[in-house]
């Protein structure tokens, strides 16, 4: 459907210096494939999609597209026309660009809105809809152009966490219907569930590509491994009671949202907070790690007490209430003795 050969894109910055944003990207996209594009900020993910959509002109070689094929794009930020109803937003392009009659365009629009579960809101103005509903309407609008390929740039990253599911649900049902898609996303669990191919982008190149299992569990390239692991691991070093506990809590919250495990946020916070209360003496430093494996759906909290021999949890004088909360909030716990100290590992 689309063949990209040695695609490059260079910008000139205000001082006329070259900024290479894409550097020889080559791949072939076949019908029915769902590609997830992941990678650090600035890797060139958005530029790649914009080049494929024809919104940017590549500097290097061409992108070959099967003749007559239509490419649709959904952006991260909500981009409905605010002075038009949902239905008018969806019918606009079919009428103006495809030259459809109003009646025909409205029938088409309603069937697209039905596809994303938005038909009952057809007459509403965008500002009266939730973020998730607006994004679903934006998807319907793109679908109304009958695209052969749908490109999505972080379709859920500007949404409140409670609305991510409804939009991801729509995207996965499109995937099941056989829609060919390229999706830039930071949601690893979603990418793993919906995509059959993952591209890891790094400094303007597709550094590694493969099946989700390979990229997430057995990445070959060290950069891929570092990226995938960074997303899955949150670390803190605590060496005094003055440690900024509020900042840690907000980081735990962000981490859980990033890993799509917002429902575990409470458990993780309680276990860390109560371990803190049990240790209370920070003359010996503490290292805390929160880890999440997307594929195994396993979340662990590891507390390393440097120089200690007994875990704060097993201390006979340990506060009973704190221990009850920790036990109740974790599925299991075990201790490991290492040369550095004692590690308590909780499964959440």
């Amino acid at each position, binding site marked *: 459907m689309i063949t990209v050969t040695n695609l490059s894109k260079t910008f000139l910055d205000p001082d006329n210096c070259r900024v290479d944003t894409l550097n020889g990207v080559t791949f072939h996209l076949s019908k029915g494939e769902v590609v997830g594009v992941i990678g650090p900020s600035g890797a060139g993910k958005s530029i790649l999609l914009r080049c494929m959509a024809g919104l940017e002109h590549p500097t290097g070689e061409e992108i070959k597209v099967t003749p007559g094929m239509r490419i649709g794009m959904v952006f991260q930020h909500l981009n409905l026309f605010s002075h038009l109803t949902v239905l008018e937003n969806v019918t606009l392009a079919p009428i103006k660009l495809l030259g459809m009659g109003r009646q025909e365009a409205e029938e088409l629009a309603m069937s697209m809105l039905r596809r994303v579960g938005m038909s009952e809101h057809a007459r509403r103005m965008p500002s009266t809809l939730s973020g998730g509903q607006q994004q679903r309407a934006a998807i319907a609008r793109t679908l109304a152009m009958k695209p052969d390929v749908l490109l999505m740039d972080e379709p859920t990253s500007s949404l409140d966490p409670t609305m991510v599911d409804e939009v991801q649900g729509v995207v996965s049902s499109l995937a099941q219907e056989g829609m060919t898609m390229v999706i830039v996303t930071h949601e690893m669990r979603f990418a793993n569930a919906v995509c059959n191919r993952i591209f890891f982008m790094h400094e303007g190149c597709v550094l590694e590509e493969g099946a989700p299992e390979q990229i997430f569990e057995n990445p070959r390239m060290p950069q891929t491994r570092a990226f995938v692991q960074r997303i899955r691991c949150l670390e803190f070093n605590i060496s005094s009671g003055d440690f900024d*506990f*509020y900042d840690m*809590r907000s980081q735990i919250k962000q981490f859980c949202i990033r890993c799509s495990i917002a429902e575990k946020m*409470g458990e993780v*916070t*309680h276990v860390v*907070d*109560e371990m*803190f*209360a049990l240790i209370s003496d920070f003359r010996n430093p503490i290292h805390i790690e929160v880890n999440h494996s997307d594929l195994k759906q396993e979340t662990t909290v590891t507390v390393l007490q440097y120089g200690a021999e007994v875990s704060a949890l097993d201390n006979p004088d340990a*506060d009973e*209430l*704190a221990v*009850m*909360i920790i*036990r*109740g*909030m974790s599925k299991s716990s075990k201790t490991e003795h290492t040369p550095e100290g004692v590690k308590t590992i909780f499964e959440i």
Partner: protein
Amino acid sequence: MTTTIKEQNGELVAFFEGSLDTAASLQTEKDIQPLLTADKNILLNCEKLEYISSSGLRIFLQILKAAKPRGLHVFVTGMNKDILKVFSLTGFNNLLEFRD
């Protein structure tokens, strides 16, 4: 974390707002002192309490222990799911009187 105590309908009502975690518990312990010498029933309003830790529970326990010998009731209301889970894990749901 803020704690406000008001007299309402013949009761002392404590409004908790924020996160009653280990770091906040020292201040909250000072704030609830008036409840320990109360001569009226007490209502702990948790509608705006987001989180409670074991040190927060200990403050609730302190209030309860002070009220018991004086024959006063301590009611709680407005807990979120997370706080209810902490109550049930620690047996606090059997100690406190719930009010809708």
